[in-house]
């Protein structure tokens, strides 16, 4: 297992493998989001109860899914970095946080607007809403902690602990609507008995979710690649001064 992660965490291999993936993910995300938007506005029907306000679902639900998925990926990368001390895993975790925080913020914002249009209130201290707010704080805390500790290795370990502890919140978010009485509706796509909405609503929802997912992969890849290039340049800048010291040590005065 350790050998497998060692191979995978080789920065050169990572740069080589991900180079062709960046444009694929970027263009794929763009195509899916444009198609999803067209379907959501022009080919999906209004809901029989909520009317036109259901169109908020096509940005709200994918944002909420990706907020959880990104945090799960971040926590796994942090765990790998913590246990096997792979710098690449730490960098992937660090670079995942901004887009995860953005998805969480969007889920809360669009949910609040949808809530006002359907429930009549922007906010309620409901278990689902509150646990999502906790997720936003976890992302914010994670980002701030990385910036607060100047030693990169120490920052990686401290933030990994926070990320792993924070993962407890993921099942709480997912099952909050089942465990407690909630104003928020229960799962209507991933549930026993299949989705409770027609294909004309499911298609734009899935396209938008897939578009968000590819966008998040693209973002994490491009940010990780940029971080690796910065580290490589910084290392290269130090190397010449070390090289000039070598002849001196061979011929002591």
């Amino acid at each position, binding site marked *: 297992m350790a050998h497998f992660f060692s191979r995978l965490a080789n920065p050169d291999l990572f740069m080589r493998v991900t180079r062709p993936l960046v444009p694929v993910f970027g263009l794929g995300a763009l195509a899916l989001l444009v198609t999803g938007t067209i379907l959501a506005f022009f080919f999906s029907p209004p809901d029989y109860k909520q009317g036109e306000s259901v*169109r*908020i679902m096509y940005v709200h639900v994918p944002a909420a899914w990706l907020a959880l998925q990104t945090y799960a990926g971040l926590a796994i990368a942090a765990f790998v970095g913590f246990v096997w001390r792979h710098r690449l895993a730490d960098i992937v975790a660090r670079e995942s946080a901004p887009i995860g925080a*953005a998805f969480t913020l969007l889920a809360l*914002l669009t949910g609040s607007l949808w809530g006002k249009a*359907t429930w*009549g209130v922007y906010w309620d201290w409901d278990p689902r809403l509150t646990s999502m707010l906790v997720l936003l704080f976890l992302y914010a805390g994670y980002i701030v902690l990385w910036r607060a500790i100047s030693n990169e290795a120490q920052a990686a370990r401290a933030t990994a602990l926070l990320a792993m502890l924070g993962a407890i919140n993921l099942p709480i978010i997912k099952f909050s609507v089942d465990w407690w009485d909630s104003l928020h509706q229960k799962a209507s796509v991933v549930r026993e008995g299949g989705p409770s909405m027609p294909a004309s609503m499911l298609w734009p929802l899935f396209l938008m979710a897939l578009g968000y997912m590819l966008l998040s992969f*693209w*973002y994490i890849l*491009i940010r990780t690649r*940029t971080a690796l290039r910065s580290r490589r340049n910084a290392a290269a800048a130090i190397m010449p001064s070390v090289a000039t010291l070598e002849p001196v040590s061979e011929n002591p005065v």
Partner: protein
Amino acid sequence: MIQTLTIDPTPFILISWLASALLLGGLAVHALLAARRRTDEESRQ
């Protein structure tokens, strides 16, 4: 009896989509600019 809300949802829909596009688009542009800046620095060295 279920009371129906009479709020016009159009501004809520527009703000939701616009905020999503601006925030995610902004992050994407920021990531692209950082990568471009790195490439420029590498080409100068």
